[in-house]
């Protein structure tokens, strides 16, 4: 509502440093630069850059803050988040978490049934139910591979739960699991 008043005295509003809360265009304006990589709807074509739509607010905030603070090392994301205050990062997190994620089809092909079972058994309790954990079904597989590589090489912290979940999997099972997630990303096949 403060922005509405602003149209009476545009000059005054421009002097206000942060975007004002209110209108529907506002989170959109705030994320203007983000859109070129992450998409207007927070959903992307396949590639190295992740979709953000429908990720949990807590996870998004935690991740963006970690990029800003340098505790999570990316390539451009550390530079992209530089200088944003907590309030703005929370706005980003709230906005992207509110966007609907890709709807996944209902039929899982036979090749991925075992992968789906493994996912339900080892992954979904965190990745679908824990607030500060990413939703990985439908995420770009090239991006996921990068994250896993970073965890494997110690460039990104792997949570203990995840380490123990992965250590319970045989090599072949891990392949089936990743194949399933890849299938989700490429063809939106999962439930």
């Amino acid at each position, binding site marked *: *509502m*403060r*922005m*509405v*008043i*602003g*149209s*009476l*005295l*545009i*000059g*005054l*509003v*421009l*002097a*206000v440093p942060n*975007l004002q809360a209110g*209108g529907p*265009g*506002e989170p*959109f*304006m*705030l*994320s*203007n*630069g*983000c*859109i*070129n*990589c*992450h*998409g*207007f709807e927070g959903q*992307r*074509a*396949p*590639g*190295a*850059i992740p979709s953000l739509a429908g990720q949990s607010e807590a996870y998004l905030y935690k991740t963006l803050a970690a990029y800003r603070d340098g505790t999570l090392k990316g*390539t*451009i994301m550390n*530079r*992209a988040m*530089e*200088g944003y205050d907590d309030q703005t990062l929370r706005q980003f997190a709230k906005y992207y978490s509110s966007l609907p994620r890709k709807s996944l089809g209902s039929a899982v092909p036979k090749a991925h049934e075992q992968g789906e079972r493994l996912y339900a058994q080892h992954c979904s309790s965190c990745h679908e139910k824990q607030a500060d954990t990413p939703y990985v079904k439908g995420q770009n597989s*090239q991006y996921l591979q*990068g994250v896993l*590589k970073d965890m494997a090489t110690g460039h990104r912290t792997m949570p203990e739960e995840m380490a123990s979940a992965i250590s319970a999997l045989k090599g072949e099972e891990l392949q089936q699991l990743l194949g399933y997630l890849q299938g989700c990303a490429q063809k939106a096949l999962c439930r």
Partner: protein
Amino acid sequence: MNSQRRLLLKWLATGIGASSIQALARPAVPVAARSYAVVVIGGGFAGATFARTLRRLDTSTSITLVEPSRQYHCCPLGVEYLVGKREEETLVFGYEQLHAEGIEVVHQKARSIDAKRKQVNLADGSVLSYDRCVVATGIGYKYDSSAGYNEAVASRVPHAWGGGQQLRLLRQQLEAMPNGGNVLISVPVDDYRCPPGPYERASLIADYLKTHKPDSRVIILDAKPRFAKQAQFEQAWKRFYGYGSEQANIQWIGALQGGTVQGFDEAKGQLLTEGGAVSGQVINIIAPQRADDFSQYNGLAAEHGWCPVNTQTLESLLVPDVHVIGDAAYAEKLPKSAFAATCQARVCALAIHSQMHGLALLKPQYMNVCYSLCGDNYGISVLLHYEHDASRNIIEIQTLRVTPLDASDEDYRREALSAYSMFDSLVKEAFG
């Protein structure tokens, strides 16, 4: 804080309904003004992104995109086509999705803007009326910039600074060049489209020469004393192309070393620089640039050649009810890049939406990212944050951050992957 503002804030705190304030805000424009007509001229990244963004904001608005070509040949990643690493089809996009979203796409050349009547005249004699006109017609070339160079010469000696035929021609010339020949790239002073572009082009040409014509060299003759991401480029060149050595496949001669090109001797195949004549078997003169002819002829461009705009709304400062976005716009201090152009497109769409509905203007947010490929699996990037300064009408640079010089191979690989990934999303946002 002045007293007026304090009063307003106090007034706000009493909880006056938004609708009544909206009605007060712009009495001339009805709040429920749902339908208005926008004519967009130019279907590149800026124009297409603008049209699709406005469509999302205003579903019932009449949006017409005027673009003579049925297909858009884009510039980003064109360098990969140039050196045979990419098919041309991957750089060509149509307007089917825009049409499907209810944007009328007219494949005509726009001839003129009648600002008084608020009409655009098309080459076939038809006339389009608008409430707002958005011009996104990009760059033109200063063909008279150096002796011996003109538009006719450019049809044989390509600038290749747009997609399509010019790029094809340069590729053919590169392929036909015998081993041992030199490729010359003449780089103009600012402002021109894609500041790091000439150096990315030189990098991938060096990569091509190293493999296919190892005794050849690409020589950059630069009218500037330094260039974007210079340390990062030079590091890559040293690493991959012997930069600085006798056998180097790449060489840069800056303005301080006499690199400024002053003339062209087509018969001898020489660029005439401050430091003397330089011979090349393939010559790529990236001509100095300005806003395109349409902007010039319609009074949108200032003496410096670009179109000054209000940096909050992208409205022309010279012609009312016309906005200019993309490379033609003089929106200091944004560079001329697809990234900045699409940021402008969205700021402009939001501004027009707000103005047509009597809503307050938002503070514009801009960012710029440019990825450059330097070789296989090796990309570098620059990211700029901006702060809009309304009082000076300047989009001031807040931070400028480049890929660190101590980045790992994995980082460079991921930057290259991100370059492709960003390209895909820029295209998806613009063309669907």
